[in-house]
């Protein structure tokens, strides 16, 4: 039976092998613009393709051979629900950012993250999630002349 990390290595090796092949197929489509006997734009990507495929294969082959040693390499990490929620919340924030603008999107994002980090006091949640984004927005706008997205509304 494969250990947890070995299984992950196998999955990674397979995914990277697919990526390597796809990268190679994209490299084939690159225009060939070079003088005779000189490397063109596709030269370096071909080297990378070779490297990706060979190393992915090595990882795939190495995984079963290392079975038994791997369990000591790293403890199995579990992507907890809280972490997954944070990532989804981050993605939602990034989708809303161009439409809602920095301020309107950042306040609920900040509050949500605070909640995920364990903050339950409503006053602290409200104050921090308003003060920090507003403070950052105006610091960058007035202090450093960086105009953050203001939204479409």
């Amino acid at each position: 039976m494969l250990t947890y990390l070995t299984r992950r290595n196998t999955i990674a090796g397979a995914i990277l092998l697919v990526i390597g092949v796809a990268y190679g197929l994209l490299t084939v489509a690159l225009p060939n613009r070079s003088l005779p006997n000189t490397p063109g734009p596709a030269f370096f990507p071909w080297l990378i393709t070779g490297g990706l495929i060979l190393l992915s294969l090595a990882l795939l082959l190495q995984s079963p051979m290392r079975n038994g040693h791997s369990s000591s390499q790293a403890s199995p990490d579990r992507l907890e629900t809280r972490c997954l929620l944070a990532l989804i919340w981050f993605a939602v924030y990034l989708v809303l950012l161009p439409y809602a603008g920095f301020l309107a999107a950042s306040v609920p994002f900040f509050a949500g993250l605070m909640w995920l980090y364990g903050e339950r006091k409503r006053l602290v949640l409200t104050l921090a999630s308003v003060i920090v984004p507003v403070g950052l927005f105006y610091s960058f706008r007035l202090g450093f002349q960086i105009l953050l997205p203001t939204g479409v509304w």
Partner: protein
Amino acid sequence: MNGDILQGFMQAVQPSSLIATALGSMLGISVGMIPGMTISTGIVIVLPLTFVLDPNMSIALLLGLYVGGMMGGSFSAILLNIPGTPSAAATALDGHPLVARGEAGRALGIAILASFSGGLFSFFCLFLIAPNLADLALGFRAPDLFSLVFLGLTVICSFAAKSLIKGLLSAVIGLAIVSIGQDPVMGTARFTFGDANLLSGIHFLTALIGLFAIPQLIENLRTAEAGRAPRAPKLRFEGIWPALSDLRRIRLPIGIGSVIGTFLGILPGAGGPIAAFISYDYAHKTAREPAKFGKGAVEGIAAPESANNAVTGGALVPMMTLGIPGDPVTAILIGALLVHGLAPGPLLFIERADFAYGLIFSFFWANIFNLIIAFAGLRLLVKLIAMPRAILMPTIAILCVVGSYALRNSLFDVYVMFFFGLLGIGMKWLDMPVVPLLLALVLGRPLEEHLRIALTGSQGDVSIFFTSPFSVFFLSLSAVSIVWSIVSARRSSQAGAAGPGFSE
């Protein structure tokens, strides 16, 4: 030359530069001492500022943060037995037992002094070695430069990886990412899928923010205990200034640590953690009372602390003279310089020698400010250990967005940053180091450029890489590095131990 040194000195002592250095040091110490924060994350916080500040101030701020972060890491290592940075792990071995004996002030005082001494020693090495190495590097031609960049990449991969295959894979993924956009020789668009945003490629700093900050936010969330941070320890800080007897005892360990740290700093990829543990080991072997090590020996604090701070100056040598980053932080410094149109490398000492010397002197001031801020503000700084994660981490998340957006005023970069964040999490899940990928993003373009220019010049004849003595030398070192890392990977696999890695 002397005029440039003077100009560099004057630039570094301008009030704006000094304020930036001091601010950087303070921020660095704070970031370094907060468990769960790394120097790289600290840099993410100030990165947007560096886009709008002038280059001297930007680099002074970042150098202050770099040097301060190294020292700050030791504070939490000593007080809580939780190293603030990986480099401080060795310091905890003897630092924390001293705290347990009620001698926190003594332990911190020795750590501060050792850090300062290591940093100062590496400043002198940087000042003496960098200009001469830059002079030598001016004679390098395309084959030499390719071999040099290749060496940098192989050394970094072998040092940064627990598994050589995963380290190399990480670097190759980085090279694949760097191949997106216009190719460096002919300007042909590659892998852009017709998107104009991809024509100029993936910006290195955007990738950096995602790779380092987002996985750390998630990691902190995983370990967060209902948002609570470690409590600030209530300690007595008498005797912060080291006694004369302690000074006598730490002279040799500081010397050992400074030399080892500077040397390993110059070697790309070795980094602070390795330097700290090797120095600790040497200090242990040369100590009069080795049995006291691990039980609160002051030599056991002085050696690793001087070493990890000496690494900072050492790492600046290849960064400034060859454009090769020694660790993630110097890779970020390269990115920050490029944003301002300054390319690190031998020409920096010719075209902008005043700036190059200004950088060296800013490094000197960063060490001075570190000493002052650490001794003067120790009681206040220690309270930062208890900073609530529930406010700190969301602030960093928002700064990630601001930092990547501010780079080119583009939301596309924000999405790229998030993509790299997910990539970083995936790589962590696979136990694959991100440092080789990061450094491949920095070195990939010059690697391809020098390779293609060299092969174009030789009409595709690869023997050109074996005709120049410099190129042969660098390629031989690359071969040694690869063989050495294969051997050490086998040894560590047999011993079931993890190999060295760093993620400052």
